[in-house]
């Protein structure tokens, strides 16, 4: 005779949900940016492979990480070949040789980079005074591409939240992408959606916007 499995299944499901919500609350510590923010605020959107990551301190004493991407697709902006930018913070603490250690590393929540990874970057304009550059929404504006999926450092949480798009503009695959609540999205469908938003000036024309509250 088979024992009823409902209560036990229910308990395991509740436990799984508890884990999921606990992890989500621990990692969401800043304002979420969504697709409207990423498209509206990025000066460059680049897809490619990170080929070099190094760090240093410039003549003004500003610590930086220097990232070079070999650009395969400039989704926004006129960029080809290699693109190099500097982001605030060292890769790791640096011994200054005088008994002190420079601890100004990449701040928590900012995008981090590894040589060889494929990524999509939504980049802010350069800082006027330092020339430093980083991704829109920090770690939320850098998507790592792997196994045909793209995911940012917030596991795409909130990426499509409070976003409304004229439904006549989207195909089936774009609509499916928009249903993602968290976790990787299909990279081709995501890039297609972003390209259409830029080419069609969806943000500027108000056809893609924040949900009015």
């Amino acid at each position, binding site marked *: 005779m088979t024992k009823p499995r409902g209560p036990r299944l229910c308990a395991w499901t509740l*436990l799984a949900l508890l884990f999921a919500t606990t992890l989500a*609350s621990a*990692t969401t510590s800043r*304002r979420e940016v969504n697709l409207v923010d990423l498209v509206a605020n990025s000066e460059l959107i680049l897809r490619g492979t990170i080929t070099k990551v190094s760090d240093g301190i410039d003549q003004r*004493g500003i610590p930086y990480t220097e990232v070079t991407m070999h650009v395969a697709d400039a989704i926004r902006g006129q960029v080809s070949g290699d693109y190099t930018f500097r*982001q605030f913070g060292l890769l790791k*603490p640096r011994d200054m040789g005088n008994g002190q250690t*420079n601890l100004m590393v990449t701040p928590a929540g900012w995008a981090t980079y590894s040589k060889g990874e494929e990524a999509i970057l939504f980049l802010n304009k350069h800082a006027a*005074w330092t020339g430093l550059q980083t991704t829109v929404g920090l770690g939320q504006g850098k998507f790592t591409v792997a196994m045909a999926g793209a995911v940012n450092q917030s596991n795409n949480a909130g990426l499509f939240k409070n976003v409304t798009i004229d439904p006549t503009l989207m195909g089936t695959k774009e609509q499916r992408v928009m249903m993602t609540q968290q976790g990787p999205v299909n990279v081709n469908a995501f890039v297609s959606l972003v390209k259409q938003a830029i080419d069609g000036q969806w943000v500027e024309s108000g056809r893609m916007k924040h949900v009015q509250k």
Partner: protein
Amino acid sequence: MSRSKSFVTLLVLASLAAFTSAAFAGGPLLVDPKTRSAYHYDSSTPVPVYYDLGNLGVVTDYSQTPPVQVIFDNATGAGLVKKGYADWSAIPTASLRADVLGDFSLKGLPDIDSTNVTLIIGKSNGRGIYVIFDADGSIMQNFFGVGDGILGEVGAHVGRGHLRARDDCSRTISNPAVDCAGHLGQ
């Protein structure tokens, strides 16, 4: 698996889940890769805290008709700094004790903006926490290169010797930020 074993397993996992967020929240900001020990302030004496000289923030409140300018003055910022570190220091299980000694003039520093922020960031001014008020958001934009929606940044600057002691750090509190709907943020 027997029913009782299954229940115990569930209980243990539920307990672990309940403590997951605590483990995330309490992680070290910086770990020495050589020794794998966390950098920390020397907690034998309270850490001095200094705050900026200017306004905390100047924003426009678009919820009013017509929109009005709202100024969060230096006293408002100083109050937040004092309360924040007092609350932190009052936690019995926290090892950090911080004393808010006063504004940057105590260290001979001026009002900090994006043109002189390297007087704080990239330079050691002695042991302490230096809280910068980025009244117009220009430090976040013109120095760090981050855009809208980032409320602040905190980072350690200098550590000393093999004890992995942290000497100083800064907190940059950005212009209290107006969100996309024009509402005042915190």
